[in-house]
């Protein structure tokens, strides 16, 4: 079973807001000068911001903000966020891999940006009953 796709728009303003809320002020997430100096194409999203957006999709699919029991990802490719009003988009899809007798649903999640996977081995277990 495949869950409905979700698309998240990400702009520079979102990265600044996430930096403040999370306490992660690494300049590669807000300064093109520093990002390019360390060999990146430009400012990139915090991996944990991408993981948080995917987590939102997971909790919304599960139907409850407290449903997540286990959630893990591997960061495979940076999400480059241009300094314009459009920013970029992250597309999230998921398939149900297993529903256990204990009322847990295991999801395999895919997150892409410009058609390329930005996460791999993204898996979530959510409580869906009981």
């Amino acid at each position, binding site marked *: 079973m495949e869950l409905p796709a979700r698309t*998240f728009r990400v702009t520079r303003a*979102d990265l600044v*807001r*996430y930096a*403040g*809320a*999370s*306490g*992660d002020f690494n300049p590669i997430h807000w300064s093109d000068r520093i990002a390019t100096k*360390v060999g990146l194409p430009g400012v990139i999203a915090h*991996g*944990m*911001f991408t*993981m*948080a*957006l995917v*987590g*939102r999709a*997971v*909790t*919304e699919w599960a139907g*409850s*903000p*407290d449903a*997540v*029991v*286990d*959630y*893990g*990802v*591997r*960061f495979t490719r940076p999400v480059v966020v241009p300094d314009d009003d459009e920013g970029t988009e992250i597309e999230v899809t998921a398939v149900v891999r297993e529903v256990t007798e204990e009322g847990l649903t295991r999801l395999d999640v895919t997150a892409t940006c410009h058609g390329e996977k930005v996460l791999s*081995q993204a898996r979530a277990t959510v409580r869906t009953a009981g």
Partner: protein
Amino acid sequence: MSLDPSYVGRTYPPTAPYQVGREKIREFATAIGATDPAHHDPEAARTLGHADVVAPPTFPFVLTMAANQQIVEDPAVGVDYSRVVHGDQRFAYTRPVVAGDELVCVSTIEDITSRGGHGFLTTRTDITTVAGEPVVAVWSKLVVRGEA
């Protein structure tokens, strides 16, 4: 400088208790666009059986990132932070984090390997209440990119 694998298994002292604030959860939820009332409204959280607003699933990283500084900055381990990228991240929950929690982090170096000139450091941080009740276990794998 490469990572020293002899530190696998080292556990660091518990962090000072972190007070989970209602406004901090609201701020974090707003920053990620999470609009579910249980992140913002204590009444909505109580109808789900929680004492106060519920943190989004990746919120504990705010605590573990700070707790893991003691590993990253431990000169004996040998992490060059300017070369670090985030490899993997995982959260395994006993229960959600809610406002009013007073949480302590204990971090352990679970694994150190090197491959292709890169170093890989896996940390596990157990987050408990000050009373010792388990809340969430958090794994982070950091990749220390080689010089080549």
